[in-house]
């Protein structure tokens, strides 16, 4: 990778545990605090997986409602952030399967907020164009390949971590990532040929 994944600060586990315990007792305010602590992290993961689509905030609502429904049986045997990441991946998969059939277009204006702050407008325009192109390329992949590719190639997860998150074995995830990379590279090659002809 050419750039390190932007760290999304991991929330304090002790505080999460206390808030979960309170939320399990029916404390809505504690659940709201859990939402505040984790929503940016969830939104960032979700955006990487499905792109800056308009349904994102509805999906975030569904993800946290899924967490709320799971609270009575949540045992806390792992970090809440990992649990939420798994729910997020599942929500992204469900969304992408439907979306694949609908072939939604990218809202290019929604890409602007994703560009790292502090760039000169020209560099920002380039970063924006790169992100739009990447989301277009990712949009050509099947849901499973796309998720595996983003987890490994963008978020920097190991195959074992990605496999645990998506509930598949490592070999399957490895194949998905390889196929995804091959498909995207082929599309980039087509771009390059067209550019060559255009010039």
């Amino acid at each position, binding site marked *: 990778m*050419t750039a390190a994944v*932007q760290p999304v600060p991991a929330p304090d586990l002790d505080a999460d545990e206390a808030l979960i315990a309170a939320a399990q007792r029916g404390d*809505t305010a504690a659940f709201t605090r859990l939402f505040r602590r984790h929503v*940016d992290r969830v939104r960032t993961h979700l955006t990487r997986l499905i792109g800056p689509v308009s349904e994102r905030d509805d999906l975030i609502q569904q993800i946290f409602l899924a967490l709320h429904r799971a609270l009575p049986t949540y045992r806390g045997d792992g970090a809440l952030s990992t649990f939420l990441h798994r729910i997020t991946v599942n929500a992204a998969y469900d969304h992408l399967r439907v979306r694949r059939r609908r072939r939604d277009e990218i809202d290019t204006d929604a890409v602007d907020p994703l560009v790292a702050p502090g760039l000169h407008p*020209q560099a920002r325009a380039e970063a924006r164009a790169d992100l739009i192109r990447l989301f277009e390329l990712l949009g050509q992949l099947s849901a499973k390949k796309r998720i595996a590719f983003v987890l490994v190639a963008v978020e920097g997860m190991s195959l074992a971590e990605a496999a645990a998150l998506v509930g598949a074995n490592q070999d399957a995830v490895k194949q998905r990532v390889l196929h995804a990379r091959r498909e995207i590279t082929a599309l980039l090659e087509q771009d390059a040929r067209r550019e060559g002809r255009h010039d």
Partner: protein
Amino acid sequence: MTDPLPPPDLDLHLDRLCGRLAIAGAPLDDVARARAEARLEAAVGVQGPDQRRRRVGRMAAAIGLAGVAAAAAALLWGRAGDPPAPVARLEPFVVAPSGVDATAAEPPSALIEPAARVTVPAGWLVRARVGPSATVTVIGPAAVAVTEERGVATLHLDRGRLLGALDGGGGRALRVVTPRLKATLIGTVFAVAADERGDAVAVLRGEVRLDGRGAPARVGGGQRWRTGGAGVEPLDPETGAELAEHAAIAPPREPAVAVALSGEPASAEVWIGATRVARTPTWVRLAAGSDVRVSAPSYGDATLRIPAAIGIGAPARHEVTFALVPVARASREDAAVATTQPATRPARAPDPAPARVIPGEPAEIVSPPAPALPTASDLYRDADAALAAGDRDRARASLVALIGRFPDEPLADAALYELATMAHAAGEHDAALRYLDRVDDDRLAEPAHYLRCRALVDQRAAAAAACLDDFRRSHPRSAHDGSALLQLAGLRFDAGDCAGAVPLLAEYVRRFGSGPGAADARARLDRCAAARPR
């Protein structure tokens, strides 16, 4: 990015694209976060009462008291539907002179206390919060009262001038009523003035709906209207700047403490971060743990730090005096620079401890060394951070300040471009075009040209088509070429010009067959083919 890539570079290219996404953050802005929280709480809250209601229902059935169950259910639903808490008071956070030449008298301290009605004397202004989503600046002489009905605050402006900003998310609204006019505001930055001769309404952003004799039904962003004027007119720059300044000033976080600031020189500027909030002498409410800076042209700065913890029993008010040291003592040349361009050159105090605190005062003066006044880079970074946080008003104010103070800095062009982008996003296309007219930086030629075309697309189709044609000729290798091509084709198609549209649509499909507009382009090609006479 648009260079042809030989195969060995494709992996690197893909890694670069992935790297872009890896460093992309997607936090919610404050407004979206508040909305999301409210939606989630409502959804979770419904589930809770549902469960409780079922439990009550089972108990009632067991003891044969169905009426109890119905009453309990009604009670629970009633709680869920309670209206928001009343907002019928102004909560001032700044009381300050309204102009540079205002009197040096003590600020009227009673005005810093929350009240349902304020009378602001001439020469002074009061900035106040009205409920959770609105702020106002009342400029004296003025009298304003606030009432609330069903969660909607109404400001009764008997006379004087009032600037306001309302976050209209979640259907929030605000009304301003003068003796002759009723204004309803939904998500806007606005000004209303009333005197015996008539009323005036100005809108920086959003829309104000009016109900009054001779008044137009609405005044939109970038417009103003006044009794006896020539109808709805463009907003004048002075009022626009006042409104942008008002919108950039945020009320303090709680807990906050009221601080009276006065000293030498009179009429010093009071800054919180990169935002000027008042001139001295002033009362300001400051958040615990925050810093406030006092500065003046040709003088050094002083920074006051409010204690991080404001405990129970601590004084509710503090009085702080300061004495800034003239820069002229350092060198005549520096003083001259500071006098003519006070904000472009950080004016530093050469002598130690020029500020003092009233005995017993718990606030801490931490100057010198004093921080520099914001540079062009500071202002640009502040605007960028504000944009990232979704605070467009603060971003706009920082960018306007940058352009005003550093017109010759290269960043001024970048600021103009950013303002144009924001204006375009807000649907203020004329404003966007005006900003773009002033951009004079070759590095911005391509994005500025493209933004100009986009602004025109939403306004004037013919001009937009000419602009896009010119853009494609001037920047044939632009990353925007695909989008420009698609928009140009769309304009021709929408105008019924299939002959002009088809070559463009075909080029788009050929070059960007997997692009976001390919399906649409193909559909339009089919429609043109179907419409062709046989």
